[in-house]
């Protein structure tokens, strides 16, 4: 098993410069980002940075009650503000066609499903005027009682047919009750996670302008094809009458994976006023209107034999959704994948509350689910006196437990062993609380990671330009680069297949006028887009023509039945201050098996970035619902603490060279999400090792950890 070595890669990246040719293969090389210079010098334009001539500014007005309906809107003061253009409300806004996602049905009815729901849009000549108008708008409400707290005994709890991702809400395998009751070692453990917020650095924003009957929108989105189709539906247009541009996107982490209010509001405002309209959401409003990771209460029941193998595995998740749309965080799903057992029961219960609608946040399902499962596995290991790595090795299944399908490839064991070697795991004293450094207690922990290798159909085109002596190619695909390096890696795929230098490939992404493609989400972008680019380049190479357009629908649907998952192992070392309760991460190391790594430089950044977000989930990120006022308490970056420079140590990310013939022609499994998955449990397990205490709730902030004797 070849293992990619950090030192080698660092050397490579240190000597590779833009425009230089290197001897190494194009695909897999550490090519720097194509849009790098534009981003580094500030010339890369994001959604709110397109200002068409005569552009007006929209400022949304958020509902000031937790539940109820709007009974009246007085806009006389708002329209008296110098520079006022219009106030759009449910009484005068353009009527919209029904979208798939009802959270986009804005200003269509007086209903207020939760605090922060938009009830109006003020449009003014300047940002200052629009904001002043929003403040001066008088909205009266008929308030109704609200209920925002989920718990497993909630009377409105129900068991959904499906959870997010199309997974069955509940699954049974074998006889869980009998196996659990008969097991010599039984563990019944409950883990609790509050809501979490994506908070990409670029707040959601859009600029829209109507040119004749054609709608042009610059949107901060993970997938302009879906936005284009949605706007066409809502505004009664043919998709060819809509152009959505998402050239540079300042992060999304799932929250921009579906169309969001700014693009709908901007298009409505532009239609109503006949002007270009820009809508950039204030940071404090994001938690209410762009989705969040739903809170979960997770009950893990594990029946173990003396040797640590599992006889029974039960994973019951309780979560919330809104009254607008059902979204069920599929946190029990990883327990259907990770470990074998004779009897298993996994299921989800959900309550529809007067809360903002939850949605995707980096590794929905896996991130919270693996926190609970991997902490529980650590508790089993500790109780049985078995090394936590050994316990996992003993429980790796031959086939995916619930489906019975063979794995396309499975290298969790290699990740655990390689990580242990690099981390120095064999020198670990397993006794909790054994290492002390002054007021600090030190501990180490490990957790496994997993994320499914999704792929979706895509189209793409490639055109041969230039002449025989200087080949040049133009790849076109509506992929989205939200910071992954999609432009760069897709150009690498094309250059590799065409057998030309990277510089010979020009690529356009980020517009719905390009060949349609799925969104950047589910760690599936590179696999899905790369498959289409690869196919287009291959067909061009094998044809006499100069332009090829392909569609991978039949290829994707023709895949063989395998269980396809990336795996990984994360190791953490923490210090816990016995006086203040502060937990700090000293070391963080991840080893991943995610198929072929297509760009060593950008892949490392994604692994490290995912682990950093996992560190935030473990230690700093906390949100809560306000029982009195409804909505979230932690609204902005002063209240909701994402990790800062000083929170993050050096992070090591490595990978196994994994060759999986059952994936897609480019051979990658997707890497955007797996980095976050094992990290919270690795840190929580390290805190137990340091202190001897199990907290079973995140984040491990000083107030929660407290004074450690």
């Amino acid at each position, binding site marked *: 098993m070849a293992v990619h070595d950090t030192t080698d890669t660092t050397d490579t990246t240190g000597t590779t410069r833009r425009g230089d040719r290197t001897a190494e293969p194009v695909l897999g090389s550490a090519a720097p980002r194509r849009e790098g*210079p534009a981003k580094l010098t500030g010339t890369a334009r994001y959604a709110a940075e397109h200002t068409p001539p005569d552009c007006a500014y929209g400022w949304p007005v958020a509902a000031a009650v937790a539940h109820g309906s709007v009974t009246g809107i007085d806009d006389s003061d708002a329209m008296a503000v110098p520079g006022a253009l219009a106030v759009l409300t449910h009484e005068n806004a353009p009527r919209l066609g029904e979208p798939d996602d009802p959270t986009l049905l804005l200003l269509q009815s007086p209903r207020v499903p939760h605090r922060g729901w938009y009830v109006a849009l003020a449009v003014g000549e300047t940002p200052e005027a629009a904001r002043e108008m929003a403040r001066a708008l008088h909205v009266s409400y008929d308030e109704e009682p609200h209920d925002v707290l989920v718990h497993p005994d909630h009377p409105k709890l129900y068991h959904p047919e499906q959870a997010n991702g199309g997974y069955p809400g509940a699954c049974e395998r074998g006889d869980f009750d009998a196996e659990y009751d008969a097991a010599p070692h039984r563990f019944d453990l409950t883990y609790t996670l509050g809501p979490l917020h994506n908070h990409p650095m670029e707040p959601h924003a859009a600029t829209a302008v109507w040119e004749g009957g054609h709608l042009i929108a610059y949107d901060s989105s993970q997938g302009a094809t879906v936005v284009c189709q949605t706007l066409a539906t809502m505004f009664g247009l043919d998709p060819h009458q809509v152009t959505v541009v998402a050239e540079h996107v300042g992060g999304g982490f799932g929250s921009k994976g579906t169309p969001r209010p700014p693009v709908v509001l901007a298009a409505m405002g532009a239609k109503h006023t006949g002007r270009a309209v820009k809508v950039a959401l204030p940071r404090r409003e994001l938690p209410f209107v762009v989705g969040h990771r739903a809170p979960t209460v997770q009950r893990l029941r594990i029946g173990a034999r003396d040797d640590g193998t599992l006889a029974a595995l039960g994973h019951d998740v309780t979560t919330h959704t809104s009254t607008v749309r059902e979204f069920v965080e599929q946190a029990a799903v990883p327990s259907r994948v990770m470990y074998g057992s004779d009897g298993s029961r996994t299921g989800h219960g959900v309550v529809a509350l007067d809360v903002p609608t939850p949605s995707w946040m980096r590794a929905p399902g896996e991130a919270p689910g693996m926190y609970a499962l991997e902490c529980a596995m650590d508790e089993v290991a500790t109780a049985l006196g078995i090394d936590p790595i050994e316990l996992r090795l003993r429980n790796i299944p031959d086939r995916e437990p619930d489906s019975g399908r063979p794995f396309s490839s499975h290298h969790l064991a290699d990740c655990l062993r390689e990580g242990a070697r690099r981390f120095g795991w064999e020198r670990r004293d397993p006794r909790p609380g054994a290492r002390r450094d002054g007021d600090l207690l030190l501990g180490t922990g490990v957790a496994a990671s997993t994320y499914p290798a999704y792929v979706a159909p895509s189209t793409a085109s490639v055109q041969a330009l230039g002449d025989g002596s200087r080949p040049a190619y133009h790849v076109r695909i509506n992929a989205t680069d939200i910071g992954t390096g999609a432009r760069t890696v897709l150009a690498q795929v094309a250059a590799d297949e065409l057998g030309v230098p990277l510089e010979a490939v020009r690529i356009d992404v980020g517009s719905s006028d390009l060949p349609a493609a799925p969104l950047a989400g589910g760690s599936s972008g590179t696999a899905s887009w790369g498959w289409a680019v690869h196919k287009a380049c291959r067909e061009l190479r094998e044809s006499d023509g100069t332009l090829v357009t392909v569609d991978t629908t039949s290829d994707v649907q023709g895949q063989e039945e395998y269980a396809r998952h990336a795996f990984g192992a994360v190791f953490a070392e923490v210090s816990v201050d016995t006086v203040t309760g502060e937990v700090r991460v000293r070391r963080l190391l991840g080893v991943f098996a995610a198929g072929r790594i297509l760009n060593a430089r950008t892949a490392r950044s994604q692994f490290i970035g995912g682990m950093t977000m996992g560190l935030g989930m473990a230690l700093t990120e906390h949100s809560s619902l306000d029982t009195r006022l409804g909505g979230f308490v932690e609204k902005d970056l002063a209240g909701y603490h994402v*990790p800062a420079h*000083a929170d993050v140590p050096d992070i090591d990310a490595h990978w196994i060279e994994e060759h999986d013939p059952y994936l897609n022609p480019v051979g990658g499994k997707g890497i955007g999400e797996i980095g976050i998955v094992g990290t919270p449990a690795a840190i929580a397990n390290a805190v137990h090792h340091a202190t001897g205490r199990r907290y079973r709730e995140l984040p491990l902030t000083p107030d929660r950890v407290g004074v450690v004797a």
Partner: protein
Amino acid sequence: MIPQRTATSSTLTLHVNDTAHTVTVDHRATVLDVLREQLHLTGSKKGCDHGQCGACTVLLEGRRANSCLLLAVAYDGAHLTTVEGLGDEERLHPLQEAFHERDAFQCGYCTPGQIVSGVGMLCEAAEGHPSHATSPEALQWATGAPAELNRDEIRERMSGNICRCGAYPHIVEAIEDVTDHALRHRGTAPHRTDAGADAGTDADSGTDARTDAVPAR
């Protein structure tokens, strides 16, 4: 110049990247919004508009500042450096080059703020400013000698700039790469000029100053 005022707006001059811009600003407008919406210098980003994230960091008279917290009307005659003033795509600033080599960014939205903040931070350290991470021993001597920038120092001094993609380890490496050169390399240590200096005399980087009047909205 004496600002021309109405009850709600004033005409004033901002010296941005050695170019004088005469603009009429709404009294409620921040320097960030004037840069982005009136001067179309969109390199400075709006991440939070509350001074919490650092994406809007500019150098104001050579010092780091969150431009979202500066009301433009209060800065007539001020000298600002934004990311656009550090380098261009053909000729990157050494810190921009280091960010590129280290892949110290992903989505790129916090990046201009990180880079401008890094440049300002290197200058502060060169002038001997201590930080929370500076050892008590070093503080005791307080000689004004350049502060030594180990990784903890860099992390502490850069903690006003948030990156949600999690590029922090690579950002620290990129800053380390230029630390040794910070004092030597032309343009890395930003020049300081006196507030209110005449537009014709603030061009000590060699760029000719010109007045680029922007019409009032």
